[in-house]
Every structure is written in C-alpha cells, then in structure tokens.
C-alpha cells in the first residue's frame, strides 16, 4: 500500500501551555495537501482518503486535566459508527495511557479542530490513522522531556505506564509533568510503534459511549437545552419545488404560548414557550407557495432512464462498445432501485442562542464547518463569532451532510433574544429529506466460447448524489463530469475481463438527492452482481468460481478473491436448494474494501425470509474488530431494509409516505437470526468500514430467490410476483 509516511512538520506543531485553569491544552495542526487538485476521482477510488484539517489555528487536539484524564477533541462526529472508540484506542497506544483515562468529545468549532469537509464516506478512522497516532506520539515525547527536566533525569531513564512516568524510584503523572509549562520543546516526530506491539489497537473493546447510550444520558442534539430556552417551529413545504411566497399568520399569532411570529424572506416560523404550542401555532399559519408542477412517480421514473441526460464514460478497458454493438449472442438485463429516505430516528434540528456579537449553535451535524460558515453568512457575523457545538448524532447516514435548518433556529433566536430550539417533525423530515436517488441500470455482456465474459458494459442513470455535497465541492464537478457518488460501486471489479466499460448518465431531479449510506453502492452492486449471477447461470458455471476466474492478479484482485473464497467457504455455499432454503452470493469493492456475502433465504406465505448472512470483508488493519462486526451487522440489516421494503413515491407533487410503518422498513422480525462475519486484514492501513458491507446484500438476496423460485427480481424493493 502506498501511504504517506510523511511526518508532522515540526513547525506545524505549536504548543501552548496552561491556557486553562483545569489543565493544559496541547495545540497542534496537521494539514495534508488538498487532494482535489491531485484528482479526486483517483484519490477516492484507489487510495484511502486523507484527513483534511481546518487551516485555522489554534487547533486543539488534546487536553490533559489535573486528574490525569486526556480529553481528545475529535474532528469527526460520532453517529454510531464507533469512530470515537477507534480514535481512543489509537490515542491510548501511542500516548501510553489506559482507555479509561481518555475521554473523547466532539471538537466544538472554537477549538479549531473541525474537519474541512465532513464526517462521512467511511473515512474517519482511515484518514486519522497517521495524523492522530503521530500527534499522540509527539505529545508523549514532549511530556516525557518535560518530566525528565522536572525530575532532573534524562528522558531515556523514564518509562511510562497509564499516563504515569517513572524512573529512579520517582513517579510523576502526565498532569504533573505538563503543569505550568508554557515554553515547550517540540521534538522531531517519533517513530510510531510496531502495530504488533499495540495493546489497544486491534482489540474488540467495548464502545467508549456505551454507558451513556444504555443509561439514557442526554447526549444528542435534541437533548440540548439552554436556560430560558424557547421553542421554534418553521413551516416546511410538502410539495416538491415549492417556493415560499407569503404567509397569513394572524390566527397563529393569538394562539396559546406564542411569543413571536418570524417572517423572513425565505421562511415563516413561530416561537412559543413549548414544543407543542409552537407546533400548534405553526399548523395555523397559512402559507402561499409557488408550485410549478405536480410531480408524479411516473415523471421521475421517465427522467431516470439510461439514455437520458449526459453520459460519462467512467471506466474503459478494451473495446466493449465495438463487441457489444454486435447483437448476436448478447445478454442484456435492466435493473431499478427506488427513491430511498434516510429515516434516521433523531430528526434534524438545532438549539441556537444568538446575541449581539455571538452565535452558539448546538446540533447533530456531519458538517460542523459548513454549518458555521452558513450561519455566519446569514447573520453577517465573522466565522469566529459562530460557535458550533456538535453532539452525538441520532443517526447520520448522510442526512446531516447539510444542516441549513440551523440557520432558521439562529434567525429565530436572534429575533427573540433568547435561546431557541427548533426541530423537524417526522412528516417534515420525510418530505424534506435529501433522498437516495432512484436508479436505472442497463447491463450488456457477451460470453466467449469458454463461458467467460468477453465484454461487459454497465450503464447507470441516477440523480445526483455527491454533487453539491460538502464531501465533493462543486469545484470538482467540471473535473469529474460524472457524479462519483452515483457511480460509487458502479465500476466493474472483474478486471481480467478483456473488454469492459461503465457509463454514468447524470440526471438532475426536482427534489434534493444526496448521500445515503454507501451512496450508489447499494443500487450499483444490486445491478452488477445480479447480472453476474445471470451470466454465470447462462455460462452454466458456479457463480463463485465464475467470479474468481475473472478477477485480475494484482493486490486489489488478491484481496477481492480472498473475501469471496472466505465467504463461500464459511457459509458452505451451494447452488442446491436444501430444506426449502436457497443461498445467494454477491461481492463488491467499495473504496478499497472488498466484501462478499452469502445469504440463506426461504419463502413463506409469498414472503421472503432471510435466515442467515455470512459476510467476509477486508478493510485492511482493523482498529476495533467488534465495532467492525457491528458495522457489518448494521449495514446488512439496513441494506436488507432498503432492498426488500423501502420505497418513496411521488404523488401529486408530494413525497410519500411520511411516517414509519407506511414507509416500510426492516423490523426485528425481518432481521436475520444469524450473521456470521469473517474479517480479513490483507492491507497495511485501515480502510473503509461503515459503508462497504451495504453493497452485496440486495444482489445476494435476489440471487438466492432465483435459485429458490426461478424468478429473477430486477427491481428493488424485491417483491415476489
């Protein structure tokens, strides 16, 4: 693996001591070059994403308190993916403290340690793998040097255990060592420890936020409150493309608890003394919307079709176009996926307190910096006058990669001069989601006389996923052309096929579409891996052997083959139907993490039942195997939910349904009773974890259904006829 071995430049590591009465702040910056200019498409698809730190200073990473606790200010937010735990493990090993001594908190924007882009794309651990360990190791050496000088010893005479230095019969805690130090000596970045010697990295330790989450601590954005806080509600549109024109608020103004009606050029809202009063008053506001068109599901489906919009060839090898233009012996199939809602349990919202010269915003967001910048712009504040305090997220999944609703809370707070809490209700959340776009796929292939693929082509039509999102600045659009989110997982991973190409057809939809955990991976893998199964059957070959035979002999190919073999072996994959159960196989490679899954299904009362999923994944170095397993289990169930149940429709201009239940999702009774996860580590850095295991599940289920019934399901959600 090519990985930056570049160390933190000494001049970038600034230390400021005794900034706080409770302890000491260590301040460092760690900045990589922006990868956009190096070609983001290559970067995202072939290398692990780098960490892009904020360029402002100071940037606070660690704080050591007097009781020898290390506070780690995380630039990445915790939305369930287990990042805080992994970061604590990485810190503990290099800083030589125990896990119990580390407290991980979300870096508020004032600390400066906020991510340039976002928390997303399964990059949190991989991007901080080098920087965080180097910072921790450097800080360890600095503390050791100060302790040595205080104790009148040489640093080499000191050993460290659990944040306590000892030597020559003397001991000193980290807190004692750093106390009152204002002028630090910054050493060259020390060598990192051999990964084999790590005590914490690689161990299946419990999540660091486990107790808070089991005993009901108020850790989420919606749990935030401030003294004298009022409650806001904003009228949100139900119709696609609805533009706010004006509002009649006379009825709402006189309702119980109403403090103030807020009329802005772009929205109308109300501030009241309680949530329910604000909701009732909001419902009494009569808004005039400008609505251009009453969209229907059929309109959207006609937009999302291969052949519509702009095509971009994103992968090309040999002459697939020429070979596949010969109609003879061509195998083709079309697949579709629907609009998907994020449906995260905690709605969007914020607590804002805006005074004459300062805005404090507490919220669940994946984009601290963007939210800060947008609020500063709206309030006409400098960026440093806006203080964003991120909280734990009640689900992210890409839904919080843009949180402009915080602006409305801030505007309302400014208007009433008090803190205001304003959250979406569930209907608003469903209707104003940034949806997973629907897709349409056309696949074509030709087999050679040996029953292997001579040429293969994947055409995908999708609404935008990454364009306009903070993960991919609009500057990248002209470079990329095609939406890299839409084709994530859309590239053909069987590179020993002599002729293949992938074409992405970009289509803009009239409603917001964006990142939904794994982006295009779920739909693209569903199409490609279902088609691979169809081709294997046409070639009269075992689907596992058929795949293995067409994977190239390089590093990526080796890792993919290993997960395929591991999953098939562990599950005991067979094409035979036994006791009314059939197996299905599929594999995907997402951001350098290959994953293969085998499902075991049966059908009862015309309903698909998934009994068991075997998942083999190779994310490279694994910081916490239990959390990687948890991500596999969760991604499998979320992927099943999307593949088997979920679908948003467009009726008379409105996205529907607007509530759980009618928006069908996997429940306890649908979850497989057995999930067997096999983890491989055939790479020497950590790679993506949270999204890759969402890839194969849809295709694996469809492939199993074919073996069981002979029905080839090519449309998600998968429904038996």
């Amino acid at each position, binding site marked *: 693996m090519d990985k930056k071995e570049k160390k933190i430049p000494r001049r970038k590591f600034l230390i400021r001591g005794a900034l706080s009465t409770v302890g000491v702040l260590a301040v460092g910056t760690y900045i990589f070059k922006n990868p956009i200019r190096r070609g983001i498409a290559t970067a995202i698809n072939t290398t692990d994403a780098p960490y892009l730190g904020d360029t402002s200073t100071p940037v606070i990473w660690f704080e050591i308190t007097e009781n020898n606790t290390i506070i780690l200010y995380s630039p990445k937010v915790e939305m369930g993916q287990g990042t805080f735990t992994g970061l604590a493990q990485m810190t503990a090993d290099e800083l030589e403290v125990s896990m119990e001594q580390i407290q991980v908190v979300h870096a508020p924007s004032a600390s400066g340690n906020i991510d340039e882009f976002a928390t997303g794309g399964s990059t949190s651990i991989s991007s901080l793998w080098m920087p965080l360990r180097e910072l921790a190791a450097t800080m360890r050496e600095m503390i050791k040097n100060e302790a040595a000088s205080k104790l009148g010893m040489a640093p080499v005479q000191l050993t460290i255990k659990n944040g306590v230095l000892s030597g020559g019969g003397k001991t000193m805690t980290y807190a004692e060592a750093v106390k009152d130090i204002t002028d630090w000596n910054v050493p060259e970045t020390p060598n990192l420890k051999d990964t084999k010697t790590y005590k914490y990295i690689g161990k299946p330790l419990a999540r660091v936020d486990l107790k808070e989450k*089991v005993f009901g601590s*108020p850790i989420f954005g919606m749990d935030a409150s401030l003294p004298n806080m009022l409650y806001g509600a904003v009228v949100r549109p139900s119709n696609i493309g609805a533009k706010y024109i004006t509002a009649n608020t006379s009825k709402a103004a006189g309702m119980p608890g109403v403090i103030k009606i807020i009329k802005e050029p772009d929205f109308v809202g109300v501030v009241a003394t309680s949530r329910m009063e604000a909701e009732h008053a909001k419902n009494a506001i009569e808004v005039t919307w400008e609505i251009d068109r009453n969209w229907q599901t059929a309109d959207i489906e006609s937009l999302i079709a291969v052949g519509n919009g702009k095509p971009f060839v994103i992968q090309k090898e040999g002459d697939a176009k020429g070979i596949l233009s010969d109609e003879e012996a061509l195998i083709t199939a079309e697949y579709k996926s629907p609009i998907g809602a994020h449906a995260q349990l905690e709605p969007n919202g914020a607590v804002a307190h805006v005074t004459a010269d300062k805005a404090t915003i507490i919220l669940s967001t994946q984009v601290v910096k963007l939210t800060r910048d947008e609020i500063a712009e709206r309030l006409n504040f400098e960026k440093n006058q806006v203080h964003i305090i991120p909280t734990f997220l009640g689900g992210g999944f890409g839904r919080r990669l843009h949180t402009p609703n915080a602006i409305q809370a801030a505007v309302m707070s400014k208007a009433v001069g008090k803190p205001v809490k304003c959250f979406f209700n569930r209907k608003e959340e469903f209707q104003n989601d940034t949806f997973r776009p629907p897709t349409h796929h056309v696949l074509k292939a030709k087999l050679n006389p040996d029953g292997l693929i001579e040429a293969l082509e994947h055409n995908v039509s999708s609404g935008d996923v990454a364009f306009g999102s903070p993960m991919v600045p609009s500057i990248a659009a002209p470079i990329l052309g095609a939406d890299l989110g839409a084709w994530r997982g859309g590239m053909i991973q069987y590179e020993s096929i002599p002729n293949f190409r992938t074409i992405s057809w970009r289509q803009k939809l009239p409603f917001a579409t964006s990142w939904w955990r794994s982006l295009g991976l779920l739909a693209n893998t569903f199409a490609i891996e279902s088609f691979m199964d169809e081709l294997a059957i046409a070639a009269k070959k075992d689907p596992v052997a058929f795949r293995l035979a067409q994977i190239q002999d390089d590093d990526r190919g080796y890792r993919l083959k290993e997960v395929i073999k591991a999953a098939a072996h562990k599950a005991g994959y067979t094409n035979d139907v036994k006791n009314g159960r059939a197996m299905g196989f599929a594999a995907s490679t997402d951001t350098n993490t290959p994953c293969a899954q085998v499902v075991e299904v049966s059908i009862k009362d015309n309903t698909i039942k998934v009994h068991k999923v075997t998942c083999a994944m190779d994310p490279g170095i694994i910081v916490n195997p239990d959390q990687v397993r948890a991500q596999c289990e969760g991604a499998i169930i979320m992927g099943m939910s999307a593949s088997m149940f979920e679908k948003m429709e467009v009726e008379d201009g409105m996205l529907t349904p607007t509530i759980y239940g009618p928006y069908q999702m996997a*429940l306890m009774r649908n979850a497989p009773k057995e999930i067997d996860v096999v983890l491989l580590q055939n790479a020497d850095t950590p790679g993506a974890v949270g999204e890759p295991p969402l890839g194969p599940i849809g295709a694996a289920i469809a492939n199993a259904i074919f073996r069981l019934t002979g029905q080839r399901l090519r449309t998600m959600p998968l429904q038996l006829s």
Partner: protein
Amino acid sequence: MQNDGIPYASIFCILFQKKLSQQLKFNKNVIIMNISFFINGEQKSVTITDENTPLLWVVRDILNLKGTKFGCGKAACGACTLHVDGEAVRSCLYPVKFAEGKQIITIEGLGDAKNPHPVQQAWVEEIVPQCGYCQPGFMMATAALLAKIPNPTDEDIDQNIVNVCRCGTYYRMRKAIHRAAELATTSSENS
C-alpha cells in the same frame, strides 16, 4: 411483505389527538392545571396549560429527563417508549392527563450504571447500541416484555418488539433480550 407498524394502543391516541385539535379551536381561555404522578419513584406535580400535551414533552422538557426520545410523534417508531403502571406506552401520543396518579418509569429510572436493570446489563454485555438514539425505547419495551414473558421465544420477541432501529442493531438486540431473560432469572433465583 407488510410491516403494518402502528400498534393498537396508538390508534386510540391518534383519535384522541383529533379531538384535541378540535378543542383548541374553541379554547381561547388558557386554563392552568396541575397533574401529579410518580416518576421513577418520585412524586411530581406539573403545572400545564394543555392537559392533552403528550407525556413525552412533559417528561423531556418540564421534568428534564431526556432519555425518552422523540422519533415520530405518531407512536409508529417506539423511540418514546416508557412505562405507565408497568405497561410499555408510546408517550408521544399519550396525553399527560391520563398520567394522573400513575407510576411512570423512564430509562433513567430503569437502572443506572451501578444498579443496571438486567436489560441494561445485557445491552452492555452485548454492546448493542450504535448511534444509540432508539435504544432507550427498545430497552423499555424489552423490560415490559420480560415482566410479562420472562423467557420469550424468538417469536415472542418478533411479535412484541416492534420499534424501529435505523442502524440495524436488531441482531444484537435479539441476543441481548435472551441474555436479559437469563440475567433476570438468575437474579430472581438468588434473591
């Protein structure tokens, strides 16, 4: 496949909610009233202008117990589940006036880190939560289930635990529910 979602009790609450909005139309004069109940063993009296305010908001915003979550406001997801006189109730549609004189238990009262309820202990052992937002509702629903069926079968779990978890922690939850049943049986044998 159908996931009909909304449980029986909530339908009653939805009907009630309609009645509430009718009342509001005519209710110009604000009436202030006191409602008393026990919450996590402690007697509380709240002053409220609208007796139909869902119990959820009273618990969260007046009593400042934030462990009970808002998910949908229609009793469809179960994030707001708490216990009223031992029954699992989706509090987002439960008018506070019905709580008068009753025993309410929230996740904060179920147990704490020093004295965890068997369900919480099992949740810790199985490392169930991911984002964690829906988990209190699931634990409250599970605790109520175990009070009725101390050793639930998988089918009992499928039929009774119908909350929504978006992170997909169902696999570990099922293991934790069985584990909680074991822990509860062991502790009652010892006591």
